[in-house]
């Protein structure tokens, strides 16, 4: 019997989640990790807490998560006019680092931090080891903070007396790291096992020795904001917890458990892997041969005009838009744009296969220039014979060696064949739209379901007018009333005014853009109008993005005025000038992008913003950001400084055919005015993604796709 028969006897064997949101046993963590590029959501109820967690695995060695915990034994505040009877909502970040992978005789070891940058209600650190033996996954670990119930001497006190005591300071303003207290104070042991049941679709039993120090967790008498406490957490009558996990699939799990000897818990989790290309749905969008291709070849042979018209016709038929062309000797130079393929290489490959099938055989070389917003992105010079020789076996790496890729400055006037576009041209689409406000004192969630019209009017090939307006259908904003308490100009904290006063209809943005490519590697953009939901004005960007490098440098400046709350055409009094110098570096192998932005922000504070993200081969990008400016923590308010995370998903991941576009999800724990940036659409770094060789090289395997 094959060793991997276990994959069939114990299918759906993805690790399961603890009630604290991250991978683990029932209450305790484990050393397990999901595959890098995985995003997950888990939800659990374990009195007095309801907890929802978003987890990301940007690397195989890092589990990062963000939790919202509904603390049902404490009030949001004692001021009923402020938060009514709403219970406390705690926000926290967890992280777990893989120290070593499981080996035949050695366990997997991880080091983790619970609630390390939140209010500290659940703060704890741990070192945990997990090891499979047959169908049982054992975990044993040592915890600090809220994981220190089963007391042992803190081993780190051997190194320093600083580890003797732990500062029990619950700071509900939160948001900052406290490295001084990590792994300090009392330590405790915990452990347990996850027993996989044979031929039950991956179902498993869990049992654990609970190391949670419930007397140090959450709200309790005599500590921190004890005045918010409405009911003391039920003390545990047993340290042994039990649970069962039933996976509906490898990525969807349901769980039920019994903790503390007196509490039933339940929950579910969903995980989606975005590491690889086409991650969710298999594509069925192959290259379709050109009809009557041989006839095109015969008819256009030796006739330059007919070759141009053939190229125009066959490419346009595949939504690969010929912009200009020049035939010189045996080389056909084509400038094209395309909006279907998010992989620039697949777009290039489809252009090549289309031309190869219909253009006379005496053309031996194709010179392809990719164009976006009338700016040259890159140029590829490809020998036709080499392209075809490598087609049947998809030996794309050999083709790569024979292909010349360069930066290009696109000037349509340099081409012989310049078909006239019918301009202006209008793209539009009507889509559902959802605006939401979560985690405020007025209520946990306020939603606004809308119908939005998004449009792009192409006036000239490098001048566009982009806009988005929407009409509200239904919302729950009646109880939303939080007023700004910011001491800074209210550039973002009047969000409630914006949401409520634009609930019937609004124009989210409407601006004109002018793009230019003054020389190779340099790109510019000017924009004017209603730039985003809260600001309108005029400004521009310049970007230097050398083709064969991994970095880019940009500068931008915007003169803006705050829009009125109804998000139509009127403005408030607040005006400012904001601008930044930006530096981008993308490490080509890991596709980790580091994006630094320094300058003056909307509330006229100055400082630096750091954004780090990783793109996966599927196109999903996961990132975090934070900013520090010349305002104090008091001036910033709750959260101390601006920070958050975001994900961008390729829309085509959800379809069987290729299509360009992204859907995004981002979250800041707290809305404040410090370090606020303009939300610019079609920023130059995004629009010029195809101008760097890394963006081509990463997808080169798609050339024959």
């Amino acid at each position, binding site marked *: 019997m*094959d060793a*991997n*028969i276990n*994959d*069939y*006897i114990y299918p759906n064997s993805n690790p399961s989640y603890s009630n604290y949101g991250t991978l683990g046993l029932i209450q305790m963590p484990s050393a397990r990790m999901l595959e890098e590029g995985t995003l997950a959501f888990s939800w659990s109820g374990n009195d007095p807490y309801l907890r929802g967690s978003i987890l990301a695995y940007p690397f195989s060695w890092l589990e990062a998560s963000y939790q919202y915990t509904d603390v049902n034994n404490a009030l949001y505040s004692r001021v009923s006019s402020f938060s009514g009877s709403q219970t406390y909502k705690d926000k926290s970040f967890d992280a777990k680092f893989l120290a070593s992978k499981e080996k035949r005789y050695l366990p997997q070891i991880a080091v983790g931090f619970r609630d390390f940058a939140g209010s500290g209600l659940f703060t704890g650190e741990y070192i945990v080891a997990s090891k499979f033996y047959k169908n049982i996954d054992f975990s044993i670990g040592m915890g600090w903070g809220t994981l220190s119930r089963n007391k042992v001497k803190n081993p780190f006190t051997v190194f320093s007396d600083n580890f003797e005591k732990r500062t029990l300071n619950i700071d509900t303003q939160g948001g900052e790291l406290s490295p001084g207290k990590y792994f300090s104070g009392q330590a405790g042991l915990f452990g347990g096992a996850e027993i996989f049941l*044979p*031929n039950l679709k991956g179902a498993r039993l869990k049992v654990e020795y609970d190391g949670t120090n419930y007397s140090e967790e959450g709200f309790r008498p005599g500590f921190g904001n004890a005045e918010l406490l409405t009911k003391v957490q039920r003390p545990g009558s047993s340290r042994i917890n039990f649970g069962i996990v039933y996976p509906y699939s490898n990525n969807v799990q349901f769980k039920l458990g019994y903790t503390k000897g007196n509490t039933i818990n339940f929950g579910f989790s969903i995980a989606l892997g975005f590491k690889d290309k086409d991650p969710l749905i*298999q594509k*069925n969008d*192959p290259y379709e041969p050109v009809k009557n291709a041989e006839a095109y070849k015969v008819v256009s042979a030796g006739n330059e005009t007919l070759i141009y018209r053939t190229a125009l016709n066959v490419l346009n038929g595949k939504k690969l838009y010929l912009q200009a062309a020049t035939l010189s000797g045996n080389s056909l130079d084509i400038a094209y744009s395309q*909006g279907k393929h998010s992989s620039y290489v697949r777009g290039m490959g489809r252009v090549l296969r289309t031309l190869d099938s219909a253009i006379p055989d005496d053309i031996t070389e194709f010179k392809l220039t990719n164009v976006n917003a009338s700016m040259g992105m890159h140029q590829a010079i490809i020998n036709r014979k080499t392209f075809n020789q490598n087609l049947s076996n998809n030996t794309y790496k050999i083709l790569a060696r024979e292909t010349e890729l360069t930066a290009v400055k696109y000037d349509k006037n340099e081409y012989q064949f310049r078909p006239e576009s019918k301009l202006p041209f209008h793209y539009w*689409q009507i*889509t*559902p739209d959802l*605006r*939401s*406000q*979560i*985690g405020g004192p007025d209520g946990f969630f306020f939603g606004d379901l809308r119908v939005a019209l998004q449009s792009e009017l*192409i006036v000239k090939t490098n001048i566009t007018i982009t806009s988005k307006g929407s009409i509200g259908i239904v919302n729950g904003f009646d109880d939303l009333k939080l007023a700004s308490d910011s001491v800074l100009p209210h550039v973002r904290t009047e*969000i409630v005014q*914006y*949401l409520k006063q634009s609930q019937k209809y609004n124009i*989210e943005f409407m601006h004109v*853009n002018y*793009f230019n490519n003054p020389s190779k590697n340099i790109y510019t953009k000017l924009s004017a109008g209603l730039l985003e*939901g809260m600001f309108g004005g005029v400004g521009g960007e310049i970007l230097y993005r050398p083709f064969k490098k991994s970095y880019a440098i940009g500068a931008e400046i915007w003169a803006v005025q705050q829009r009125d709350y109804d998000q139509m055409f009127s403005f408030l009094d607040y005006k400012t000038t904001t601008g930044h110098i930006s530096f981008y570096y993308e490490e080509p192998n890991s596709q980790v992008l580091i994006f630094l932005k320094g300058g003056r922000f909307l509330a006229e504070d100055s400082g630096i913003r750091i*954004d780090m*993200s990783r793109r996966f081969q599927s196109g999903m990008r996961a*990132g975090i*950001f934070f900013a520090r400016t010349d305002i104090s923590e008091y001036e910033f308010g709750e959260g101390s400084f601006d920070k*958050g995370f*975001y994900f*961008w998903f390729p*829309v085509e991941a*959800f*379809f069987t055919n290729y*299509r*360009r*576009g*992204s*859907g*995004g*999800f*981002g*979250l*800041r*724990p*707290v*809305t*404040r005015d410090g370090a606020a940036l303009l*939300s610019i*659409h*079609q*920023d130059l*770094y*995004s*629009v010029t*993604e195809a101008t760097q060789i890394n963006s081509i090289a990463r997808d080169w395997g798609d050339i024959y796709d």
Partner: protein
Amino acid sequence: MIKKVLLTIFVVNSCSYISYTEILPTIRSVVIGAGDIEINQSYIDSKEYSFAKFKIGRSSIAILSLAYIKDGVFEWVSSSNERIFTFNGKIIKTIGLPHNIDILDTYTRQGFSSQTVLVALDNPNATVSQFLTYQSIVTEGNVTVVEQVIFNELNLDVTNTYVIDESNGRPISSTQKIHPHLPKISINFYYK
């Protein structure tokens, strides 16, 4: 249209933002399933070669054309190069499916006879043994063969059916589960 890869946009802070653009059609296709392919006489007439309609689960439907016949094994090929090999209508090997099988040479290709066979599964890779037993039911002009398959190591027991045209011995249709991770496959065979 200007192509863009958006980096960081937050419509409102302290709240989540997701673009629902184009998500709805996905949900619709998941709920409703993909459209069926109706095989009528004109469709049959339009085909040059024998073909088979394969329906995997409730939604995936494909037409595969007969490419080769060798030693009683029919090889069916789809336009996207999935290949399915059948013997008496029973799938004995697949290539290109999300989960493939290959019944190893222990399979006795002598009609439907009880036997134990080894099957190579992929994604994940494993080799399992199956115990096959058969029962035949004769109806008007056709024989329905009911195959009981016991995956010995997996505590999995499935029932497959094969409808055979008694006049020529050719399979007309079949329903079979071939891989633990694939739903049942329904096949209708059309000969030319």
